[in-house]
């Protein structure tokens, strides 16, 4: 029952690997074409997403599940933006474009700005000298926090140099080690999928 999808995965996966090594312009055109296909498939998946969004939130409103007014706002926004897009297009100056840049963008920026508060709160809780390793982490964190901003240089001229060393030597060494591990893990997972060893994505749990 799974032979068809596994074969398809193998053929597409092996083709894409081969295309990586073939710089011929026609091969690269095929590569671009395949990437376009992925975009088209994604567009169809968005229909599934919209259906899911609608059914989940409609159910929440019907059953008055906690937070249901938010679901109402979501569905209203879904219908409203769809209507704007269909009626007046999706250009920069269209109502949808303006809605995007005047409502969605500021909201996203506000959410991102909250990160500073979350970082401060997490740092206060996590950086405590419970043992030798945690103490090392704490001292390094303080040196980095002070040394990476102008005030560090104001306090001691050697701070920027010290933080550069911390970033360039211990930090980079650890990052490279983790990155090599991640890279090999990713190659291994990709090969397992292409060869049909890993079939979780087909819904097979064993």
């Amino acid at each position, binding site marked *: 029952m799974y032979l068809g999808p596994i074969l398809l995965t193998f053929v597409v996966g092996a083709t894409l690997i081969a295309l990586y090594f073939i710089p011929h312009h026609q091969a690269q055109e095929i590569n671009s074409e395949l990437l376009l296909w992925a975009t088209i498939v994604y567009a169809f998946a968005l229909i599934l997403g919209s259906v899911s969004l609608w059914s989940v939130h409609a159910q929440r409103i019907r059953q008055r599940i906690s937070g249901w007014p938010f679901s109402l706002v979501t569905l209203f926004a879904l219908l409203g933006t769809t209507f704007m897009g269909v009626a007046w297009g999706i250009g920069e100056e269209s109502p949808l474009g303006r809605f995007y840049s005047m409502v969605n963008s500021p909201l996203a920026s506000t959410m991102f700005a909250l990160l500073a508060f979350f970082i401060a709160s997490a740092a*206060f809780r996590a950086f*405590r000298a419970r043992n030798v390793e945690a103490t090392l982490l704490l001292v390094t964190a303080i040196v980095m*926090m002070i040394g990476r*901003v*102008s005030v560090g*240089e104001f306090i001691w001229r050697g701070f920027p140099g010290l933080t550069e060393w911390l970033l360039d030597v211990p930090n980079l060494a650890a990052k490279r080690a983790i990155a090599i591990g991640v890279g090999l893990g990713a190659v291994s997972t990709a090969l397992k999928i292409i060869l049909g060893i890993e079939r979780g994505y087909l819904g097979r749990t064993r």
Partner: protein
Amino acid sequence: MTWADRLLRLDRRIIFLLVAAGTALPLLMPVNLPISVSPRVEAAYQTIDVLPAGSTVLFSLDYEPDISAELQPMTIAIMRHCFRKNLHVIALTLYPAGPGLVEPAIRVAATKEHKVRNKDYAFLGYKSGFQTVMIGMGESIRQQFPVDFYGTPLDSIPVMRGIRNYGEIALLVNLTASSAADYWIQFAVGRYRKPMVLGATAVMATDYYPYLSSRQLLGLIGGMKGAAEYEKRMDLFGDARRGMDAQSLVHVIVAFLVILGTVALFASGQRGPAPRAEKPQE
């Protein structure tokens, strides 16, 4: 409950208030703390500075409003540098909300340096699909962007004359907060051998240090601090330098809170492993 215990259970809203005050005060009352230029930013500056006048620099400005505090001042500073050196600038964005930021940034930089649209720079606008666009531009820029952001055909834009693909581009500058940087390194640097300078958010920047040592990147500007360094190198006083005082004070507040938490921990006698979920049985 002792003072130490109370401090250890500090309501996080108090921390939030301190951070808010630490951000707002220096913006209202700037101190202008000193800034030194790091080797990575200096390398980025030099890469642009040595380009001969008339060379074309391609800017891929792949960010949206959420990241603009870090990357918008960077865009303006680097573009002003290019304009001062009489380099031609071609800009594009791979994010749908990008044009709303990129267009005013180019306009500000060009106005300050007395440069004219289409003669000194072109803005191609937004196109979706990272890899498709990057690979496609290797074949033909016109195929990916037949018209610019304002609807003018590329063939009618003087600054685009003779620019067919990456072959005519002297340098790629990518400012991003996403994996777009990885793709640009893979395609523009790897496949088409273009020199590249990267501007990234502070969180991301250290991920790209290995690319500097392998010379896949010629310069790296990280976060608002990097942008402030670039402004300093350009002898400008822009939004990044203005924001550095606030960033400094917030860092000091967080460092102070961390020290305070540790002092409270010692005073409460709760040292030892961090409390965490009970370990499950094998």
